[in-house]
């Protein structure tokens, strides 16, 4: 006689449940209470406008022995027509990425994200990270920092404070490198390994439905494995650096571009720009037709791009060679002045308050660079 299926299910699940006991409940209880207290502590500190973050950032600035400059320090001027460094700002650790937005210049590093006030020329706020920081972006009213555990931490810039809003798991693995952007109503992260775009719906983050899903959705497009994402011209643009493919989310059009590992993508008011990483090229692409409007040969194995001040800023570098920053005229593709050679290990570039800003992974510095004149 065959057994009753309901009894089989019930007894099997009982066996499975009985085979398991939670490991070290008292340690878990302590961890829970600590995490709860930690969260409240951070909120209270920021809520009462005690600018501990700014103080901590200032202490870090003062504690970096490699730079005698505490805020901005003048450097020798370069040729008049070329972009030239005008100040260095100590950020204390090894910055991994830099970006800018209405709140200032943002620097992600090992244990924190820091805000540089371009007017003051110094670090004015700091937010702690639970895991080493990777990419940072400001958008949709928040600052978003990905970390080495595949999560993103969200902060609200409030005056000189950074208020922790939450930390959300995006991918379930360590050492995931996600490129990130914001689009209207959402934060997005590109995962080239999985070929997925993850989207965090901000409305659901602000009003979580107690379901633990954090408004996370996934968009898989088999035609592209995005290594870089950027929002502009009312679309989310995806670059598959490894395959040399470029296109907009939701569009079937894919444009071939000269790109390799460590490529980067940017959008100016009318066109797309791709810095090709190991492909050694910077190209301007028509967003409607994919036509290459400008094609510049550069050296270097990794590249980063920024748009600002009426120019395109291309940072290129390679192991054991100095990095170079080029100020490119977007209309003609001409390089303004001589390319600026940068010592150390520049990791990223952004543009804010009339200057280009380059993070230096070796020196724990951010270098402020004044544009050259054509």
């Amino acid at each position, binding site marked *: 006689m065959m057994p009753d299926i309901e009894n089989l299910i019930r007894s099997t699940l009982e066996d499975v449940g009985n085979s398991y006991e939670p*490991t070290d409940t008292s340690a878990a209880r302590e961890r829970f209470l600590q995490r709860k207290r930690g969260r409240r502590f951070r909120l209270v500190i920021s809520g009462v406008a005690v600018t501990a973050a700014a103080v901590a950032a200032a202490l870090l600035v003062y504690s970096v022995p490699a730079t005698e400059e505490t805020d901005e320090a003048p450097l020798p001027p370069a040729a008049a027509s070329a972009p030239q460094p005008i100040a260095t700002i100590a950020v204390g650790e090894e910055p991994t990425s830099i970006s800018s937005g209405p709140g200032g210049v943002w620097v992600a590093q090992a244990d924190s994200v820091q805000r540089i006030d371009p007017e003051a020329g110094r670090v004015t706020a700091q937010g702690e990270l639970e895991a080493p920081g990777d990419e940072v972006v400001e958008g949709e009213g928040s600052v978003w920092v990905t970390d080495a555990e595949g999560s993103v931490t969200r902060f609200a810039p409030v005056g000189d404070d950074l208020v922790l809003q939450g930390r959300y798991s995006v991918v379930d693995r360590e050492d995931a490198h996600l490129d990130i952007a914001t689009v209207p109503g959402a934060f997005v992260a590109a995962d080239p390994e999985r070929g997925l775009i993850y989207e965090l719906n901000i409305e659901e983050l602000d009003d979580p439905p107690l379901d633990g899903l954090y408004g996370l959705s996934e968009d898989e497009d088999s035609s592209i494995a995005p290594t870089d994402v950027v929002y502009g011209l009312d679309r989310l643009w995806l670059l598959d650096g490894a395959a040399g493919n470029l296109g907009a989310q939701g569009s079937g059009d894919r444009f071939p571009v000269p790109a390799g590992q460590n490529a980067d993508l940017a959008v100016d008011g009318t066109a797309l720009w791709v810095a090709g990483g190991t492909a050694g090229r910077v190209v301007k692409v028509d967003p409607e037709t994919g036509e290459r409007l400008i094609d510049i040969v550069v050296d270097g194995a990794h590249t980063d791009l920024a748009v600002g001040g009426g120019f395109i800023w291309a940072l290129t570098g390679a192991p054991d060679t100095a990095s170079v920053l080029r100020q490119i005229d977007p209309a003609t593709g001409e390089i303004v002045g001589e390319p600026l050679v940068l010592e150390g290990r520049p990791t990223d570039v952004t543009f804010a308050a009339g200057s280009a800003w380059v993070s230096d992974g070796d020196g724990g510095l951010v270098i402020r660079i004044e544009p050259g004149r054509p």
Partner: protein
Amino acid sequence: MVESGVHLIESRVEREREVAALFDRHYAPLCRLAYVILGDAGLAEEIVMDALLKTYNSWGGIRDHARTDSYLRRAVVNLCRSKIRRRVIERRVNQETYKREERRAPAWDAEVHETRRLVWEAIKSLPERQRATVVLRYFEDRSEAEIAEILDCAQGTVKSQLSKARAKLERELLPQLAAGRDA
């Protein structure tokens, strides 16, 4: 000022007690529920920790504290379902993760528990909503109304999910079990 300070401290101490009690009451049973749904002890404990913190953080927004049990179960079950959905994607693209899950399965005694192993493998192959429904019904012994509240769906949906799950398990298991008996 002093008096209000004392009240503040007392209310904070009271709140600490409440939170600790919340943990003590729910942690182990919720871990067991998550484990039975997922079959992964580490992940189950991680999920329960997240669910407890999330519920605590939303404490002020919970109107009916008598229903904390339902809220917590809903958070745990939905986090488990989310993990299962994500694993489906991972299995497609990441064979290593799939292998890790297999390695963490319970150590069944092959001879004594072969039937149990077959049944549990079949339960784990159910779609995530059916799987959660089956665990709540047969492991937690929840009524259809309670399951509907936890899963935030209609009772009719629970009934149909259970019916589909049973039919699928019967289809898969009965021939295997019959073959085992014949052998």
